[in-house]
């Protein structure tokens, strides 16, 4: 039996906005579509930026990637603000429960001193890497082109900030404030971190939004997250009695799995547009992958010593396979 609740039904004049209808026909549209397509201005700008008079406010020429339509990009998660916020709220609830569990059961006390030290040395300076990711997300969101492409980057920016904040909390579980200061000192001065810091600082001056996406979200995040949070924390540390750490950083594992799908879709769309795009993406991805892998080696050594080379080789292999699937051979 079906319930037959009735409402006064009025025939609508149209199903959606004209810009959506021009793209997909006049049929009911999703919130993602209505909230995304064509929102950004593309014509008849009034003034050139005083800070960049060679370009319009929004200008396709800021990147070497060429798209016939920048709305060819589509976020497979269909994130607009509401969908994004609801998804993250759910994840933060889980993260809160995990951190609370570790804290309330004093699981940090169950870690042996050596593991605790290695976890501290590995994870806490990564706060600064995530803070760099926040800046780069802002860059691409600000200077990229077309809402379908730029919108996910404000989410990336804020996610990176959140990760920096979660790592801060992990630090405060592992010890006290002084650990954060020590970690910053390592980030600034220890040899093991200088390759990575140089990498991050070099991305700050990358002007091409698409290259910056490759350098930050594809190459660096694409190697760092599976290496640190899967291979090291979830596998190595967990096998050494460190499930508490794994629990406390679960947000990062889940987050990477989810955002990777979006990054892959973005690469795929741009790479399949033209041979020129594909070649550029391959060049950038190859260049930044090599730099990221090299920068991560001494960092991984902090946590897993001699195993680092093997782990990184595995990650690079997986990374290459992942990009091949997205249409880029690196």
């Amino acid at each position, binding site marked *: 039996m079906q319930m037959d609740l009735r409402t006064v039904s009025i025939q609508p004049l149209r199903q959606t906005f004209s810009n959506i209808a021009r793209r997909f026909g006049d049929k009911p549209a999703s919130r993602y579509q209505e909230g995304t397509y064509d929102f950004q*201005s593309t014509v008849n700008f*009034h003034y050139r930026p005083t800070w960049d008079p060679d370009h319009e406010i929004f200008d396709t020429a800021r990147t070497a990637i060429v798209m016939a339509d920048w709305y060819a990009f589509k976020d497979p998660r269909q994130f607009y603000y509401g969908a994004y916020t609801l998804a*993250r709220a759910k994840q933060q609830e889980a993260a809160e429960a995990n951190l609370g569990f570790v804290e309330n059961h004093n699981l940090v006390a169950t870690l042996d001193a050596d593991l605790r030290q290695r976890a501290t040395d590995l994870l806490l300076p990564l706060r600064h890497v995530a803070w760099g990711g926040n800046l780069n997300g802002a860059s691409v969101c600000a200077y990229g082109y077309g809402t379908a492409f730029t919108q996910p980057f*404000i989410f990336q920016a804020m*996610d990176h900030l*959140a990760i920096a904040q979660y790592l801060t909390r992990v630090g405060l579980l592992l010890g006290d404030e002084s650990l954060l200061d020590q970690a910053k000192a390592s980030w600034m001065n220890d040899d093991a971190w200088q390759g990575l810091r140089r990498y991050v600082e070099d991305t700050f*001056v990358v002007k091409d939004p698409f290259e910056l996406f490759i350098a930050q979200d594809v190459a660096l995040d694409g190697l760092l997250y599976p290496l640190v949070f899967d291979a090291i924390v979830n596998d190595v540390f967990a096998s050494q009695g460190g499930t508490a750490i794994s629990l406390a950083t679960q947000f990062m594992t889940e987050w990477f799995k989810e955002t990777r799908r979006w990054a892959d879709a973005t690469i795929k769309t741009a790479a399949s547009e033209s041979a020129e795009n594909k070649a550029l993406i391959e060049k950038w991805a190859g260049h930044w992958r090599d730099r990221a892998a090299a920068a991560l080696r001494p960092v991984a050594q902090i946590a897993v010593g001699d195993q680092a080379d093997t782990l990184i080789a595995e990650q690079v292999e997986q990374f290459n396979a992942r990009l091949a699937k997205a249409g880029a051979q690196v």
Partner: protein
Amino acid sequence: MDMKTSSGKKLGLKEKYRHMTRGLDWETSYQKREDVHPLVEYEGIKIHDWDKWEDPFRLTMDAYWKYQSEKERKLYAIIEAYAQNNGHLNVTDARYLNAIKLFLTGISPLEYMAHRGFAMAGRAFPGAGPRVACLMQSLDELRHAQTQIHSLSNYNKYYNGFHDPAHMLQRVWYLSVPRSFFDDAVTAGPFEFMVAIGFSFEYVLTNLLFVPFVSGAAYNGDMGTMTFGFSAQSDEARHMTLGLEIIKFILEQDPDNIPIVQRWIDKWTWRGYRVLTLVGMMMDYMLPKRIMSWKEAWEVYFEQNGGALFKDLARYGIRPPKWLDQISFDKDHISHQAWATFYQYGAIADFHTWSPTEDELDWLSAKYPNSFDKYYRPRLKFWREQAEQGNRFYNKTLPQLCQTCQIPMVFTEPGDPTKICYREVDYQGEKFHFCSDGCKEIFENEPEKYKQSWLPAHQIYQGNCFPEGTDPTAEGFDPVSKVLEYYNIGFGQDNLDFEGSQDQKNFAKWRGMATSNE
């Protein structure tokens, strides 16, 4: 979020937040600071210590998500219920919808621009505090753009004029007024952007811009608009705090900043005030159930509240914005002058205009005893009589536009409401025209910027506002219909008088269906 360190010491909110933001930041050494943040110097603003920035709201991301998601859940539940229940039939009168069309085409795409603009500002500032605050606002502004389009999506299904807001913003003549305002702000440097949008717009003028629309919705049975407005309220409160903080921060950093900031306050108050003409007109003419007059709103929200603010800023050496005398004189006039303009140009606008009813004329007389009966009522009565005889007046000659604010040159001389105000400047062998001393001075301060203005009337005359492939030399070429095509304004649907419009007929028919058994 309750947080203890493992040593058992509980961190205070401030301390905790410090670790969560500025504790993350570092001085770069592999790349020079001026290469990482190249935009902080060129406006001449001097910042000596970014750490003096007081974070106006200490919100970590997890708390942000939690709080915002609760608001989103509620908002979208109401949007859905409103749509399912044909809530649009509960508004006071279908004329009301035109106020919302103005909002959707004139404001929502600007919320989007604010999203991008705050991303630019957040990227530009080297300080961790302002960066986080700006980026959070960038995210909020995306929220506002999207919740507005989602709320109004249902109106678009049933009424005309809602169907292409972002397209129209970039083309339709009067929409170049709000659009150029925001284009102006984002093409300025990051500090000026913050003074323009964060301070002048979000702090000083928000009660005159956002609030009248939302209150208008509440007064006129529009729960859809009201709900997104109220849902945005706590975001706006954060944004206002940021706007005030940035101005105090800049002023406290160096005395050399004071004259620069003063010039920006003068400029952006005037620019903002000119944009508010549209809101004034909406309040006085477009709401069937009125909240208060434009004049009253200006007196309460600017003269009283703004007066207190500028008294407070006086200790930094900031004086109230320029041209307030003129604004004060003009408050009796601008809404009437604007409505008369839209009434005349109703054939090329994406919303309807109409002759006010006798009751409404009386309300206007009572609210504007110094001006309405003397200058404006007779004209409206004349137009109404003409319309009743089948001679509804549509002006077919394009007006001259002000080079700065881009409003047609319809405003009158300060002190003489019978004389149109004209100002002009010769620059590089060309003549530029202005509606006021304010707009003229703004041009003179930055002529290289404002000579670029994309003026819709000029662009039409230059042949740049026809659909691609149009041949203006072809026989029977009708420029108006081609311009409407370029605007994507449907003739006889989106434009012309409310009387006789599809909106009017459909609303009456549907309301009948919903409230009777016919």
